[in-house]
């Protein structure tokens, strides 16, 4: 053998050994670090300019979520199925200018909670006195989430409660009482729903409803006659619940126009959110589905919807779509969609996506999206549920909070192996819950930490989860952001399954500037849902939209919050109302809430 050949073979061996070691090393890094809390806060304030301090007791919130009851036939995998129901929505139900908080509970007989903001840093649960507490009565199903909007344009936000049961509509009477107006409203009799949003799909000034089905509506999960209720596949399941598009006909009446508008999919919907992605003035609908691809319904001028997930690029790879949130991460004036999924190291790598629309769609009638999740470094979170963008340090760039963790039961146990036995198998095996191995108290993607990603201003994010708040590993579900104490800082509220929520007070002593907008429609729907606000300052341009339901089982405060960094001036703000009107305000006042009425 020639020496050249020998040398080549030695090099090959060195490369081989190098590759073996090189591939193994990245997976050996330590994921968790814990620190002294006081020092951590000091460091966080110094380095990042803010600290999220959980303070349930201090603010008077003693709510604790309890999981829904299920038929005993599902006993073997009850924790797996009863793993949702913790939700949070922010609403100023009494129009006092301070955000209030609504939490859903899910166990039969448990009480939902409406925490009124007392303006002194504390909250008081008034759910019972206004008639929104005892909503998990036997036979009515289990609460899964709540969304608020003024469906009758009377100036007060009303409540849609969605359940694994009959959705319920509550009319807000002057911010003092709520009346159940479900009967005769046209709402469906039973939906096993984990998502709903208010949006005005036809821009007629009356907000309409989208309710997503998860389990098929054929089943009452507390009274089953069959165990064949599970998804038929882990990537291609179409045996979930049907969705509902309900047109607001006025006078508290809703009409089921689902079929007429082409929203007939029966995938396992977990979240939805609406915004106008193609610039035609009508809100399009992004639907996140578990066990299948996501869907993007392009609104054809309020007359019907066309599903264009594949054409737009967001619906080609089936994943576990868990939530939808919106954020303009690079101040490009383009609203991107963050869609959470599931990642468990070594077992399932789906990665969360950030879909950014491309400015020019060419000849296509549909917008094109590219996934920047990995490039931005916001892809790998864990078993994710809710997520929200918001400028946590008011530096002018939107940061990201992601809720993680599926089932935290016995420590150092994992149901993943048992799970994989049925999930890789034939549909006839998967879809029957009785074939699923008994969980026996095992965890599955449990004890995960929520992610907090700080926007670096260059399309990249830094993972500061270990730095800006104490380590907590609840099974988090819903996330909402709101300026709870009118301080100009976004606080974070997290609903945790079978546990207490977390009220993170945003401690932010720094002098970054901010501006907030509260929009009121006149021709458009009263809550101005669907309005797009474009803020221009210091050479930057950030867009946000008014939504009524965003993330997973959550709703942010109605007002929009923008951080401005050190800039002490906003050039102008442009508001695109659903009615088609535009409002431009030059140099709006900063460091305050601007209330803008549609003219």
């Amino acid at each position, binding site marked *: 053998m020639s020496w050249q050949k020998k040398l080549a073979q030695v090099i090959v061996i060195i490369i081989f050994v190098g590759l073996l070691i090189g591939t193994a090393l990245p997976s050996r890094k330590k994921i968790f670090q814990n620190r002294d809390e006081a020092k951590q806060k000091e460091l966080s304030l110094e380095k990042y300019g803010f600290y999220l301090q959980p303070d349930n007791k201090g603010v008077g919130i003693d709510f604790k979520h309890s999981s829904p009851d299920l038929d005993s036939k599902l006993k073997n995998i009850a924790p797996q199925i009863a793993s949702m129901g913790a939700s949070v929505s922010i609403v100023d139900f009494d129009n006092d200018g301070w955000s209030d908080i609504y939490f859903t509970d899910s166990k039969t007989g448990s009480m939902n909670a409406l925490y009124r903001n007392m303006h002194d840093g504390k909250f008081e649960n008034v759910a019972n006195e206004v008639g929104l507490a005892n909503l998990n009565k036997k036979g009515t199903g289990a609460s899964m989430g709540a969304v608020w909007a003024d469906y009758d344009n009377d100036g007060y936000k009303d409540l849609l409660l969605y359940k694994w049961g009959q959705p319920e509509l509550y009319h807000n009477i002057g911010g003092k009482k709520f009346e159940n107006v479900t009967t005769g409203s046209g709402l469906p009799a039973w939906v096993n729903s984990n998502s709903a949003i208010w949006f005005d799909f036809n821009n007629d000034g009356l907000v309409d409803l989208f309710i997503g089905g998860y389990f098929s509506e054929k089943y009452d999960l507390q009274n089953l006659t069959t165990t064949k209720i599970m998804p038929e596949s*882990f990537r291609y399941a179409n045996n979930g619940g049907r969705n509902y598009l309900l047109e607001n006909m006025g006078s508290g009446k809703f009409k089921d126009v689902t079929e007429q508008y082409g929203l007939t999919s029966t995938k396992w919907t977990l979240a939805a959110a609406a915004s106008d992605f193609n610039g035609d003035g009508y809100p399009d609908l992004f639907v996140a589905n578990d066990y299948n691809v996501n869907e993007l319904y392009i609104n054809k001028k309020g007359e019907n919807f066309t599903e264009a997930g594949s054409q737009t690029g967001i619906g080609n790879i089936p994943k576990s779509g868990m939530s939808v949130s919106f954020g303009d991460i690079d101040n490009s004036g383009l609203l991107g969609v963050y869609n959470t999924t599931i990642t468990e190291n070594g077992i399932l790598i789906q990665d969360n996506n950030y879909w950014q629309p491309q400015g020019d769609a060419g000849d296509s009638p549909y917008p094109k999206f590219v996934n920047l999740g990995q490039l931005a470094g916001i892809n790998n979170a864990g078993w994710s549920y809710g997520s929200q963008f918001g400028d946590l340090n008011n530096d002018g760039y939107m940061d990201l909070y992601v809720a993680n963790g599926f089932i935290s039961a016995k420590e150092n146990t994992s149901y993943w192996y048992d799970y994989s036995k049925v999930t890789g198998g034939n549909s006839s095996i998967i879809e029957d819950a009785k074939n699923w191995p008994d969980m026996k108290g095992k965890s599955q993607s449990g004890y995960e930490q929520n992610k907090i990603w700080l926007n670096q201003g260059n399309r990249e994010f830094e993972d500061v989860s270990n730095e800006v708040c104490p380590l907590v590993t609840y099974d988090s579900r819903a996330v909402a952001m709101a300026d709870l104490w009118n301080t100009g800082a976004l606080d974070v509220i997290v609903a945790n399954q079978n546990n207490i929520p977390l009220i993170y007070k945003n401690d932010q002593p720094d002098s970054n500037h901010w501006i907030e907008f509260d929009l009121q429609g006149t021709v458009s729907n009263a809550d101005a849902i669907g309005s797009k606000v474009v803020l221009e300052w210091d050479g930057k341009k950030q867009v946000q939209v008014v939504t009524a339901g965003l993330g997973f089982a959550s709703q942010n405060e109605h007002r929009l919050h923008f951080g401005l960094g050190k800039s002490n001036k906003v050039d102008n703000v442009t508001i695109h109302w659903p009615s088609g009107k535009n409002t431009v305000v030059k140099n709006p006042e900063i460091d305050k809430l601007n209330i803008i009425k549609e003219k």
Partner: protein
Amino acid sequence: MPWITKSTKGYFQYVPPAFITLLLLIGQLSFGVLDSYLYVVVSIVAAVLTEIILSRIYFGKWKSLSSAYISGISVGILIRSVSIWPYIITSVLSIMSKYILKYNGRHLWNPSNFGVSWMLFMAPLDVAGLSIQWGSNFLGLAVIWALGLAIVYRAKRFHVTIAYVISFIILAYVRSLIVGDTFLAEVSPLTGPMYQLFIFFMITDPGTSVSTRKGRIIVVIIVALVEFVLRLNSFIYAPFYALFLVGPVAKYIDLKRSAKKAAVADYNSKPTYSLQT
């Protein structure tokens, strides 16, 4: 051209690559099994290029690329990653193992079994397996099984596949008794795509299986037994790890025993067919 190098294997050398391509197409057209065609293409290209380079370095000649093609396609189907590099590296490692990890001139590990097992075990932050990502209906399943069985029969490896499947089913029943889960739950993985690749391609690989029929049956039963133990210890990728552990030991013993009887076989002249992955 490497694709048309002179071979005594006849047309049958193209059947396994054709079958695995068909399996991929059925999977993709029925269920969209691939996250992206790009990943499979990259895996195949990486495997083929590595084979071309190493065959020149080690043997100074072109080799048929059908086994590299099968290795590449297996990697593209069996691993999951959001990055492209794991597909490239897994393919490269698979082919390299064939040239480097040898005894008496014969490689010990099934190439893609080596690459896939290594990455699944050692790089869990970057790589996952196919285990829960292929929905299945009975028609697609029946077609794949019928074709697979026909081909292993033609390749005279029917006994290997059947011995393994029977062992798996019996041991699945025993596991169901031990862990208390239903028999269907325990046997369920066999209906998934990971096992279809495993039983039709990996365990039947002539290049790394032992020389006698009886020996091959014993080896796959041992593979099934090791997998049984690994499964009781909750290893999701138990079949790959079992073959990774048992296959080379069996091959080593087999080579050692037959060393006195025959000179080390020439890499390309034996076997007369190839299902090698």
